[in-house]
């Protein structure tokens, strides 16, 4: 029992040490970011950066049970949220208020270092009042992510339901990266086919994940052939060249808004079907493989 207590005490001490170090870093970062905004104006990136640092400061103080410091940080975060969403201009009075808040945080961290306890609610009440005044004078209150109804999602049974443009862009980025890696590996005589197989498998997984079903079987065959080392490297290289071209075509279609993808369902994962919109038939030939890559190429 004594050992257990000691271990808990040690863990707690370690957490406080980590906390003080993090707070020091965050306060330094907040000051740098605010000074930057004050002297260079409020660009989108600077505002987003200050919001994020304030968000982390809020979360970190909250985790340590410093509710009053957290409350003040929450108000500052709310104000920055309005600014970053263009719902409030960052006037000089708000910048002054943020500087005063940083001074308060700095004093508070010294107190907490000595006492390992939160500061008093009365220590932050004035500044919180000032933030509320600034925020309430705006037509919109913070909405997103400030909702705290106590109900969380928990474990989610459904799979991905939205393939947004960022998802598709990320797919193309990954696909090009992997093609480059496969080509690079193929150019080295001593390269290991296992590495190439991993890149292919990753590409296959990505294609399935965002619901590309067109010619998926061909990519599976291609990946298998690499796994089993059943094709010559020249043949693999030739297939990859073709893949690069057709991937390019597909990306063009996406840029033109002619590629529509929907999340895969369990049944649809292995079936083939076109995701191309009306009028775009480049990849819909049933004799073509993944992204139009000829099966004969393998």
């Amino acid at each position, binding site marked *: 029992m004594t050992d257990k207590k000691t271990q*808990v005490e040690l*863990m*707690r001490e*370690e*957490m*406080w040490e*980590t*906390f003080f*170090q*993090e707070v020091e870093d965050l306060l330094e970062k907040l000051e740098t970011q605010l000074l930057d905004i004050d002297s260079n104006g409020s660009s989108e990136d600077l505002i987003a*950066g200050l919001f*994020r640092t304030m*968000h*982390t400061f*809020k*979360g*970190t103080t*909250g*985790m*340590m*049970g*410093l*509710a009053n410091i957290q409350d003040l940080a929450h108000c500052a975060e709310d104000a920055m949220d309005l600014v970053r969403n263009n719902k409030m201009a960052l006037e000089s009075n708000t910048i002054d208020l943020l500087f005063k808040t940083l001074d308060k945080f700095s004093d508070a961290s010294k107190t907490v270092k000595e006492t*390992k306890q939160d500061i008093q609610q009365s220590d932050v009440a004035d500044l919180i009042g000032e933030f509320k005044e600034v925020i309430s004078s705006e037509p919109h209150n913070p*909405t*997103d*992510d400030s*909702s*705290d*109804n*106590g*109900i*969380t*999602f*928990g*474990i*989610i049974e*459904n*799979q*991905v*339901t*939205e393939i*947004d443009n*960022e*998802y598709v862009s*990320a*797919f193309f980025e*990954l696909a090009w990266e992997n093609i480059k890696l496969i080509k690079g590996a193929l150019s080295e005589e001593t390269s290991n086919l296992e590495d190439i197989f*991993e890149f292919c498998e*990753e590409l296959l*997984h*990505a294609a399935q*994940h*965002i619901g590309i079903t067109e010619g998926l079987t061909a990519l599976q065959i291609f990946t298998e052939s690499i796994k089993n080392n059943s094709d010559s490297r020249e043949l693999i290289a030739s297939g990859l060249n073709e893949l690069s071209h057709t991937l390019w075509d597909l990306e063009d279609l996406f840029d033109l808004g002619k590629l529509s993808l929907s999340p895969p369902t369990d049944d649809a994962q292995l079936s083939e079907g076109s995701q191309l919109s009306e009028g775009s038939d480049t990849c819909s030939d049933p004799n073509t493989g993944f992204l139009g890559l000829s099966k004969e190429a393998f």
Partner: protein
Amino acid sequence: MQPKSLMIVDDSTVMRKLIAQIFMDNKHISIKAEAANGEEALKQLRTVNPDLILLDIEMPKMDGLEFLRRAKLRCAAKIVILSSVAAVGSERASKAVKLGADAIISKPSGTVSFDIGPKCGEEITNTVSKLLGLH
């Protein structure tokens, strides 16, 4: 049985440390990697190949939602969003659901200085264990 591997992605050192402490004595789960943002995590993903990723949303360089898309494209790891914006009604949490997050739970708040130990992070442990089939 080989322990399941975990990756923690959070810009708060305190949070990463807390999670490490929560799983310290768990012989079924091993923390294989930590990252302070999505960009750092993505660089490690291929070599670490974790079974599960605990992911914050609000982070510099690459935020949690962007990392979620990229990680889901790259691997089959379960992804648990661990965020102060976990509540139903939050726009970003709803987006994470649509993008394929496997669970969304709240960060422990106000617990570290008082309740550290086995009870701290019970929701995290239960969710992670369930998703990894350890229950």
